[in-house]
């Protein structure tokens, strides 16, 4: 894996929407910058002009109530849905991500909320699905099996009995581990995890959070969706809050406390409104 970038020091915050002070210290160029992303399904407007920055070496937690549009936003970035409007800047260049292949070739990997594994295929087959290794025209089963085993061992996924067992025979937590391993096995620059700990026990949750920290320390941009504010506050550097398809807050972790995140999620505002205060970027 190509993970050479040094972790970025935490810079000062820049509030969302550009409405507040821009006097903050220079932000690192975000790896991915979303501007005005909108998406509707028939009569349902899922996203309204969403802005979001995903800087490298930072964990951005995307919060929001059920149906806020978190998964839809993730899928827009992953090439599953094409946004109706808005632009995406990848390392400063405008890109159009139309298919999952486009996303993968940029270096975007996704762990979906509804786990995207084929039950009838085994662990190795799932981890390489769509990107099989071949020697001449035939599948390089041995090479794929070794690489998958190395990745799983690196993640300390030791409870599966055989790497060749069908995914249908795995427990929920094991499936989650396979999905995460599948996402981090490639030379990715951005990893998005949609509720990666929802099905997990305490130990497995700790593993995933630890993994997220490691990805970030290697300079990857990470986006995590979670309803569990404990997890969010443990692992995130930045928090973005969606409410009914609108981005209502985006700032450094220190600008929030649990109550204000809940307020943003439920009412779209906060008694300690970071957007209004305009001073939250003075971290520490």
């Amino acid at each position, binding site marked *: 894996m190509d*993970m050479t970038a040094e972790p970025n020091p935490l810079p000062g915050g820049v509030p969302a929407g550009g409405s507040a002070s821009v006097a903050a210290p220079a932000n690192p160029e975000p790896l991915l910058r979303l501007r005005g992303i909108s998406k509707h399904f028939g009569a349902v407007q899922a996203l309204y002009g969403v802005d979001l920055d995903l800087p490298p070496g930072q964990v951005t937690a995307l919060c929001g109530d059920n149906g806020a549009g978190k998964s839809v936003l993730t899928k827009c970035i*992953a090439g*599953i849905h094409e946004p109706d409007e808005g632009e995406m800047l990848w390392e400063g260049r405008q890109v159009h991500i139309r*298919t*999952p*292949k486009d996303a*993968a070739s940029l270096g975007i990997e*996704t762990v*979906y909320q*509804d786990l*995207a*594994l*084929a*039950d*009838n*295929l085994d662990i190795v*087959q*799932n981890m390489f*699905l*769509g*990107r*099989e290794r*071949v020697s001449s*025209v*035939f*599948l390089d089963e*041995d090479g794929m*099996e*070794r690489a998958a085993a190395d990745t799983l061992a*690196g*993640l*300390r*996924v*030791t*409870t599966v*009995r*055989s*790497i*060749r*067992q*069908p995914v*249908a*025979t*795995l*427990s*929920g*937590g*094991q499936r989650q581990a396979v999905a995460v391993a599948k996402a981090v096995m490639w030379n990715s620059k951005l990893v998005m995890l949609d509720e990666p700990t929802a099905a997990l*026990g*305490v*130990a*497995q949750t*700790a*593993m995933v959070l*630890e993994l997220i*920290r*490691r990805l970030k*320390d*290697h300079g990857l941009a990470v986006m995590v969706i979670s309803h569990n504010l404990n997890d969010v506050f443990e692992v995130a550097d930045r928090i973005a809050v969606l409410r009914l398809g609108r981005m209502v807050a985006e700032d450094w972790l220190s600008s929030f406390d649990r109550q204000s995140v809940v307020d943003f999620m439920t009412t779209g505002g906060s008694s300690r409104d970071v957007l209004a205060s305009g001073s939250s970027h003075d971290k520490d």
Partner: protein
Amino acid sequence: MASIDKPAGELPDTVTEALSAPDLTAAAVEVIPPEILAQSLGQYLRAWLARARSGDAGVLPVAIALVAVTVVFTIVSPNHVFLSAGNLVNLFDQSAVFVVLAMGEGFVLLLGEIDLSIGYVAAIGGIVAANLVQPTPNWPWWAAIIAALLVCGGIGAIHGLIITRLGMPAFVVTLAGYLFWFGVMIIILGAAGGVGITSTVLPNQQALYGLVYSYIDPVVAWIGLVVIVGLLGGALWLRDAGRRRSGLVAPPVGLTVAKIVFLAAAGVVVVAICNVNRGSFLPIVGVPWVVPLVLVVLAIWTVLLERTPFGRHMYAVGGNPEAARRAGINVSRVRTLAFVLCSLTAGLAGVIYCSQLGGMTTNINGGQLVLYAVAAAVIGGTSLFGGRGRAIHGLLGGLVIGAIYNGLYLLGLPIQWQLIATGLVLLAAVSVDALSRRGAGSGSLAHA
């Protein structure tokens, strides 16, 4: 933020310990295939029995069916003629059509779709080949076969494109195809109502007819068998031994040996049966050419499905289309190609059928053929619900259907009893499929 003073790639001990602890939620949804975990042949057999009891019986039902059908028909057929060499070779010839049709249908069943048209698509294939070896245009026999395959592949492409581009259910599109190609067949056959390939003066007709009715020299057949078993067995042994040596998941040695022994035994039985003189006046011996032809089709489709990325993508689309899409697989392309391969394979079945019948007539019952094909695939172990199926399932199921067809004919039972018997067998096969699926389903419910 937690500081990690271990090198990248290492997790803190607490996490490591937690993960190494047995996962109490790991209640298996289905049973892990025995060959993956077993260390010895004995362990394998025990695991295999355990899995069969839990509902996922693998090839057990079709093996039982084949033995049961053979025993019953041997007992009840006049003079036990069912088990005579002459009849068994006849059975191989008859089964060839069902086997190849079932392998074709298997491609679409693998995606959880169905193709109802392939009976008449096969007929079109047979008619194209037969017409091309008529005095005019008198094409070479091999060119006639290739043309038949291309025409049928094209028909499959039309079906597949309508299904994927217009988003129509395969059931309806191929039902329309059933009627449409039935009509086209009658038009092509015209007033004569048939086309024959039994001329003894046209070598290309003889070659086509000879697919079923010319035989490999017994000595050549034995040599061929030794070569094939040697190559296949050697490849299997080298692969498994190599994987065992490099610590990859591999079946126990005993299982590899058992597979090779079984392969050799099956080959010896087939060649020995075919090399018995089955003529009444003049001697008739030898393996019909259609037998190696079917085995070549089996080999090619097995390699395509199990050793290439395209085959892997077919399983993925059959198992979880959304996962396949998210993995960057072009799902519409895979589905379209499944219909192409299905019809193309049916075209070859049609050529074999044409050889077996000595020509094609409007009497061909494409509806019955397609039902036999679906029945054969499902009896062989292919799931109607998608995601599970192999080319070998078509061979095994096709032999069962062929045996029933052949046995009922020997008993002199009229067609209505053949239909009823086949219907019951199909129902039994689908029940086994549904039961094994229900077993898996309730497992995952209990798990959720």
